[in-house]
């Protein structure tokens, strides 16, 4: 075995061995291992296959910077795809399989694709699969693309907890800088939260022999103790995956494997970024082979897991940080040679395993190549927050520049690669100050990709983007870094540019002969690491995803076997009973026409307008004149937008001189309330008008039909019911069961109808009384579907269904206020525009089909044959059980002038005929209003 476990003291528990399998073969690791470290300890190097060429891949890094070792893991019968092996904690019984490989990562049947690499360069499918049609190839490409396959099984209980949180100082990163900053801030009296994505604090400190004179573990424990003693909180295994507006930081707190992470929405007054830096790869021939790893990654495997990644190691580095690594690896028993990448072109030798490295004429037999082309600060979160980046010539890296509000960077992410400098910076920032520019002993010789050089040199390991692909993109003028990324897929998926970004930018800069800072960088976006969608989802699912409002009478409806559904944000009865829905609905229509329908109209708006200016205000809000409405009376009217289109229709009742009740459409309550509140404060005196939305205080039960009056009479209410005493469009206030009751005589069915409104908690008693009174008269509850037919038979509109965003009131036959209302109202000016006066406006009409024809499809177009074009469309269409034939409403150009005209109706290629008629198909004289 090349890689193997050593006896070095590490963070694993050697007393707790864990069994697991990879690609069907059994292995053993220890508690504290990751999947990757456990496999390396067993000598397994090939842990995955690349995206396009299916080349063998071993881990490059030891943590989030590894793009190669991605696995599908099954534990206790539950399968999780796309688990990064370097960050997945080992658990007893895990069964891991490499993604994108079959039957195994070591032997992948699709590896033959690599032979065709000359024809599979960047953008090949854009060029190759154009003929005869991209969509012919698309399914196959999509099937081959991607990484792990998502399981079709629903993971029961896989639910993410979500927590809102707040702190004064959030320190991101639990390495030396983060610990020091958090301690300084906590001891300064700040409310501190320190987060680190590792389960064990310390960052790279575990690689060091000592820090400030003591062992790293002791120093880390001392800092952690001081932080918590000062009131600070520490969250380990928690990744800050995104920074959003106003100091909001998304934190994913990982629990045991197989559980969804907990989402913390952390609002931080100040953010100290101590996210560190990563080794960046060196671009040379064969640099993607298993066994080519980052220097820092190798040291982490040794320090945290006691795993030495190779026995004969070539250490290729251009910077001074490799010196300590060399000492550490040699002490662990590695035979190690140092190579200077500037001494000549490098080439990794071997196939699935690294066999050696050549530089010019020199060949070195090694099993592992550790590479570092310099340090790349992890500035992702800095960029999420809108922070600028500055190019540092000394460090050959993009460092945090102009800071976003409330954020400061310290330590390696700020280019402070010296421990003492890093600690000094961190303590300054922790104390609330901004550290200045720090000196550095870090030295390196610039080392970037060399365009035109020979061999296949990888820029992006995961997506098989090579130096030649970047050159090709430049030749084809995809020179912008954003275009480069999308054309080549450089930096996409889980890598998100952590390893590939700088090499890609540098390659493009070199191809163009421009300085790297001029090329710029791609946009960093959350999440920093892959997170399950479930984490965003949380408990907002099923009944808690946009939860519907529930009726007070729902138990009564369920007891009556109501078919419940969403209507305008409420769970409401569509119809009642078990059986064929259409038959049940038609029976309800006939019941309402012959006796009475009892309908739960509780969601209807009950918005009160009160105050000395209420009358003038509602007169301004409504298209119709409302100022002449007397107390106890009701009027139908429209509310318009400023553009003159109808936003709602309904009735308004006047309770007294300074009090009105607006009964708007059920689904428009929120928008109407907002509309009223907005206009109350705009052009009116808000101290003289007040809006109280009492929709949910009142429940409303409608009794509609020729026997409605008899049913109310049976309730023995203290109100005179005869038509002359209680005429249409009036309101009475009385009591039921010693509770205030409002009775409005209005109708949405064309029959005699009463709306009874009572406080919500008393609604069940009223409903039971009404239903009981109706039994003897063969009245019964009806649902919304029946109501929709009843109102359509009368030609009554539903705003939003029988109107569109351009429908004005005169399109619906209500033209008088536009011409005669003497005072201003909302939408007035727009009703006099050229467009409002155009002769070809779409107007509401009825549509009749030839005898024996079926109903018209809603949405079907009414068309003119020559030239063929749409004149309008069907808005509502029903089989009318009352009339015994289909009825329909529609909007059609110049509709009033087309009454009697027969037009073609086009729907999905079929053409039928319909005759335009008046909207009202039933009782046009309105005689049934008085029963």
């Amino acid at each position: 075995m090349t890689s193997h476990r050593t006896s070095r003291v590490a963070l694993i528990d050697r007393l707790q061995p864990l069994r697991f399998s990879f690609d069907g073969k059994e292995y053993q690791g220890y508690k504290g291992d990751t999947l990757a470290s456990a496999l390396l300890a067993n000598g397994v190097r090939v842990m995955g296959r690349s995206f396009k060429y299916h080349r063998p891949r071993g881990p490059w890094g030891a943590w989030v910077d590894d793009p190669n070792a991605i696995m599908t893991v099954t534990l206790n019968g539950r399968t999780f795809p796309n688990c990064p092996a370097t960050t997945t904690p080992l658990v007893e019984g895990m069964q891991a399989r490499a993604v994108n490989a079959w039957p195994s990562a070591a032997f992948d049947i699709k590896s033959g694709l690599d032979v065709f690499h000359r024809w599979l360069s960047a953008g090949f499918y854009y060029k190759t699969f154009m003929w005869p049609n991209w969509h012919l190839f698309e399914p196959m490409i999509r099937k081959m693309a991607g990484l792990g396959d998502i399981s079709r099984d629903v993971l029961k209980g896989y639910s993410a907890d979500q927590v809102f949180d707040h702190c004064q100082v959030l320190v991101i990163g639990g390495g030396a800088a983060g610990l020091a900053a958090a301690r300084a801030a906590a001891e300064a009296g700040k409310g501190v939260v320190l987060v680190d994505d590792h389960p064990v604090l310390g960052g790279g400190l575990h690689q060091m022999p000592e820090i400030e004179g003591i062992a790293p573990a002791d120093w880390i424990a001392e800092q952690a103790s001081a932080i918590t003693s000062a009131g600070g909180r520490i969250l380990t295994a928690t990744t800050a995956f995104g920074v959003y507006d106003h100091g909001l930081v998304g934190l994913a707190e990982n629990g045991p494997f197989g559980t969804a992470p907990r989402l913390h929405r952390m609002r931080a007054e100040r953010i100290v970024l101590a996210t560190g830096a990563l080794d960046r790869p060196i671009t040379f021939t064969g640099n993607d082979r298993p066994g080519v790893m980052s220097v820092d990654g190798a040291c982490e495997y040794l320090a945290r897991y006691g795993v030495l990644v190779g026995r004969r190691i070539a250490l290729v580095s251009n910077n001074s940080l490799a010196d300590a690594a060399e000492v550490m690896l040699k002490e662990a028993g590695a035979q190690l040679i140092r190579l200077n990448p500037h001494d000549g072109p490098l080439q990794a030798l071997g196939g699935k395993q690294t066999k050696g490295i050549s530089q010019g004429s020199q060949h070195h037999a090694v099993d592992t190549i550790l590479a570092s082309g310099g340090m790349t600060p992890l500035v992702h979160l800095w960029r999420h927050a809108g922070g600028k980046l500055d190019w540092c010539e000394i460090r050959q890296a993009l460092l945090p520049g102009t800071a976003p509000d409330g954020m400061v960077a310290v330590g390696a992410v700020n280019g402070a690669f010296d421990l003492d400098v890093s600690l000094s910076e961190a303590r300054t920032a922790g104390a609330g100050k901004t550290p200045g520019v720090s000196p550095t002993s870090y030295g390196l010789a610039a080392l970037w990709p060399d365009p035109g050089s020979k061999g296949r040199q990888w820029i992006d390991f995961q997506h098989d983007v090579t130096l030649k692909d970047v050159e090709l993109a430049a030749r084809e003028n995809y020179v912008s870094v954003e275009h480069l990324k999308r054309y080549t897929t450089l930096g996409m998926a889980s890598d998100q540019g952590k390893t590939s970004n700088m090499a890609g930018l540098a390659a493009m800069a070199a191809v163009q002969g421009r300085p790297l800072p001029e090329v710029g960088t791609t946009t960093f976006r959350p999440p920093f690491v892959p997170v399950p969608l479930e984490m965003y989802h949380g408990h907002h699912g099923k009944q808690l995803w946009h939860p519907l409002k529930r009726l007070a009478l729902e138990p009564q409806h369920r007891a009556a076997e109501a078919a419940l559904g969403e209507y305008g944000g409420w769970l409401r009865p569509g119809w009642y009973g078990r059986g064929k829905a259409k038959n049940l609905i038609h029976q309800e229509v006939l019941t309402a026409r012959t006796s009475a329908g009892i309908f739960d109209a509780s969601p209807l708006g009950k918005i009160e307008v009160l105050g000395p200016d209420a009358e003038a205000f509602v007169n301004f809000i409504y298209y119709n004149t409302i100022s002449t409405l007397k107390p106890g009376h009701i009027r139908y009217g429209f509310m318009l937008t400023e553009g003159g289109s109808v936003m709602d229709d309904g009735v308004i009742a006047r309770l007294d001189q300074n009090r009105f009740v607006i009964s708007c459409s059920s689904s428009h309550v929120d928008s109407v309330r907002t509309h009223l509140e907005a206009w109350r404060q705009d052009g009116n005196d808000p101290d003289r008008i007040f809006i109280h939305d009492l929709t949910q205080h009142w429940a409303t039960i409608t009794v509609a039909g020729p026997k409605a009056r008899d049913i109310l009479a049976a309730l023995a209410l203290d109100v005179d019911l005869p038509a002359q005493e209680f005429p249409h469009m009036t309101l009475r206030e009385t009591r039921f069961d010693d509770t205030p009751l409002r009775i409005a005589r209005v109708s949405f069915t064309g029959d005699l109808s009463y709306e009874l409104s009572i406080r919500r908690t008393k609604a069940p008693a009223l409903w039971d009384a009404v239903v009981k009174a109706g039994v003897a008269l063969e009245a019964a509850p009806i649902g919304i579907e029946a109501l929709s037919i009843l109102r359509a038979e009368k030609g009554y509109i539903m705003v939003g269904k029988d109107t569109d965003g351009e429908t004005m009131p005169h399109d619906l036959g209500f033209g008088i206020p536009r011409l005669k209302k003497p005072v201003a109202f909302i939408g007035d000016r727009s009703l006099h525009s050229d467009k409002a006066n155009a002769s070809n406006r779409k107007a509401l009409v009825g549509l009749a089909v030839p005898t024996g024809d079926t109903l018209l499809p809603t949405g079907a177009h009414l068309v003119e044959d020559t030239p063929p074009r749409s004149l309008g469309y069907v808005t509502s269409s029903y089989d009318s059980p009352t009339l015994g034939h289909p009825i329909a409403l529609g909007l059609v150009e110049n509709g009033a002038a087309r009454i009697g005209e027969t037009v073609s109706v086009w729907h999905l290629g079929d053409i039928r005929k319909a005759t335009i008629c008046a909207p009202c198909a039933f009782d046009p004289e309105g005689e049934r209003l008085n029963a």
Partner: protein
Amino acid sequence: MRDDSEKWDVPQPIDCVHKANGITLAPATLSRQVLFSGPSVLAQTEQPIASWPDIVAAHSYALSIRRDRVLQVNGPAASEGWHGDTCQAVTDASDAYAVFDISGERSLEVLKRGAELSLDVPSKSVARILFNLGVFLYRYEAETKFRIHVASGHAEALVRSLKVAIAAS
């Protein structure tokens, strides 16, 4: 047009008390909730006005909803309509809001699953968004007891959300 009845659980009885993880969620019984609006309503209100994070100790009190509106809780009966003498609009809203008490040492942790709450950030208004629902939220009688008013139609959604949060806390 479809029957979704099975997708929505039968609402639980409003008087159902839920106890789990050291948390108690129970409906609160109020005698009256009345909306008062007026340009000087905050100054005119005789009852103590609840604010965040103060603890309401009185039986009868008012909730500051905005600069010109309070919801009077357990107050005396008031005639509805416009009161020209005090320049106040008054309406009964007793059934407009369902009211619940959540109590227990970790009740704030439960509520933090639905909103960004901090006892260190005061507010004169008790209007909040909790689990994406508009509510009035304040401490009542004790440091670890919170009272929540939610639009009646959303009571089921709030209770269900709180139960999920209690289970997770």
